[in-house]
């Protein structure tokens, strides 16, 4: 009898899985490859030298980063609270935090305008302070923060949960106050998760279109510009801008995977 090298037979089930895998890979990769292949290098160069394009991409980066930073400043203490304390209604608070993920994108814009407009007390207050949301960078940053916040909070919370409370207890027993303990022990151990959260929320914010286009068509962030170019001039003229924007997203995506993979390896 011949020796069989592998006696675990790979049945039709296995091959079904492999073929569906190939279909899915192709479905995801083909459009992205085509996107990069379609515009010539010359077109990409011309495009980025276009003042409007450069300005919109810069505005996208700048507002997304601001949204991530705001999430960081307000989100960090709350994430720590949720990671360390149990209280009644914690589940509900966690649910509310994840709500923005579930809201359809244009509805986010509509909802924000609802409180920022002059029909709402809050909107009147803003108007008195001279703060304009509609059609302003402030407005863009507000909606981006709204959609980006849950991503930072969830990542930071997971990071804090991974730091053993015993380390903090030992630190306090050695004379460190709660503040010192946080900055000397908790933060150095959780910063990587917080960075993951920052990148995830930036990535989410930089790709947002539906919520922003409601609140601020102008000043134009990159996704809005891509949309305008497509509507006004067609596919060919929107592709180079799309390539530049997607490059930024992919950089964030790779950073993220490297960070999370390294974390898995370390554990």
């Amino acid at each position, binding site marked *: 009898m011949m020796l069989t090298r592998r006696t675990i037979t790979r049945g039709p089930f296995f091959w079904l899985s492999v073929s569906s895998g190939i279909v899915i890979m192709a479905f995801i990769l083909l459009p992205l490859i085509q996107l990069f292949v379609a515009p010539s290098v010359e077109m990409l160069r011309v495009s980025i030298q276009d003042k409007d394009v450069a300005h919109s991409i810069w505005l996208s980066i700048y507002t997304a980063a601001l949204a991530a930073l705001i999430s960081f400043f307000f989100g960090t203490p709350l994430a720590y609270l949720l990671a360390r304390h149990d209280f009644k209604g914690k589940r509900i608070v966690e649910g509310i935090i994840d709500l923005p993920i579930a809201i359809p994108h244009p509805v986010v814009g509509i909802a924000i305008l609802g409180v920022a407009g002059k029909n709402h007390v809050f909107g009147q207050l803003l108007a008195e302070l001279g703060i304009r949301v509609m059609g302003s960078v402030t407005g863009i940053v507000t909606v981006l923060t709204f959609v980006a916040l849950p991503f930072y909070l969830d990542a930071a919370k997971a990071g804090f949960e991974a730091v053993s409370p015993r380390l903090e207890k*030992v*630190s*306090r027993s050695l*004379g460190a106050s709660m503040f*010192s303990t946080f900055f000397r022990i908790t933060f150095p*151990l959780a910063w990587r998760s917080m960075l993951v959260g920052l990148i995830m929320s930036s990535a989410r914010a930089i790709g947002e279109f539906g919520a922003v286009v409601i609140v601020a068509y102008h000043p134009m962030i990159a996704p809005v510009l891509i949309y305008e170019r497509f509507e006004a001039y067609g596919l060919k003229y929107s592709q180079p801008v799309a390539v530049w924007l997607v490059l930024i997203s992919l950089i964030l995506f790779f950073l993220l995977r490297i960070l999370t993979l390294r974390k898995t390896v370390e554990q």
Partner: protein
Amino acid sequence: MISIKGLNIELRDFHLRDINLDVAQNEFFILMGPTGAGKTLLLEAIAGLAPVKSGKIFIGGNDIIGLPPEKRGIGIVYQDYALFPHLSVKENILYGLNFHKADKKEAQQRLAQLIETLDLFHLLHRRPANLSGGEKQRISLARALMVDPAVLLLDEPLSALDPQFKADVRAALKRLHETSRTTFLMVTHDFTDALSLGGRAAVMHNGLIEQVGAIEEIFKRPASAFVAGFVGMKNLFPAEFSKNKATFSGLEIELAGAPTNGHGYIAIRPEDIVISRQILSSSMRNSFRGVVAGILDQGFYYELRVQTQEVSFTSIITKSSLIELGIQESADVVVSFKASAVHFF
């Protein structure tokens, strides 16, 4: 030194009720008890790391109940070391000095002495991650003692260590205790640790302190049925006493003394019960026929459950004896024990 008065704690499922405990200056006090007895909770309450419902804790005469943990001057060492993974060994040890005003020369001296006593010199510039358990626990001890705490709390510091490192750290603990004026309070469930390190001990159970006293005393004369079971007297029966006899479930057992109370408990260590196939002619005054009801592998030994008429005795037998005597489940055997092996209380 440490004096705890009427301490009550409620934390989720755990309750400590009316804990009273006094530990003298520089004593090495042992806290024993099964998992879930509340030992760690008591340590954390003393350190200010767990909320207290009522009661007082005095350290050197001062009630510290209102102080935050960083103001108490109490060190804590955990079973899992709790070393700061992002700091080097030296930074770990010196961590506490960031928050203590210390004379530089004195601190230098103290560091040198701890490094010497705990044999840490070759590790100082490494990260804790890949060190052995024994090394980690020695570092954790150095870190806690670097700030010269009045009290050092040790939460099962040896139980996660491999056997070969256990002796090392135990010896280090002994040296540290002898050379410092710190009061040690250690949680353990290992009698070896208790016997070789401690003088006095308390046994906790279900949030209550069951017995306080010298360790040999607790081992030889357990004050309650729970403590008897905890120190390894597996054969524990409620019995009626009359003169130097105890009766229970139809069995009459001879005792080496005469109990003063009319009824109570008798307890026999499994290792004091001898198993044979025939009645032995020996000095053992108590002998009963029975049937093997269970055999349990305990590593070097087998634990044997022998069912006599209405009582089930637990005994210990070596692997060789098991094979030589041909003992299997449902085999007929005889259990015998000396009158002096029967403890009563």
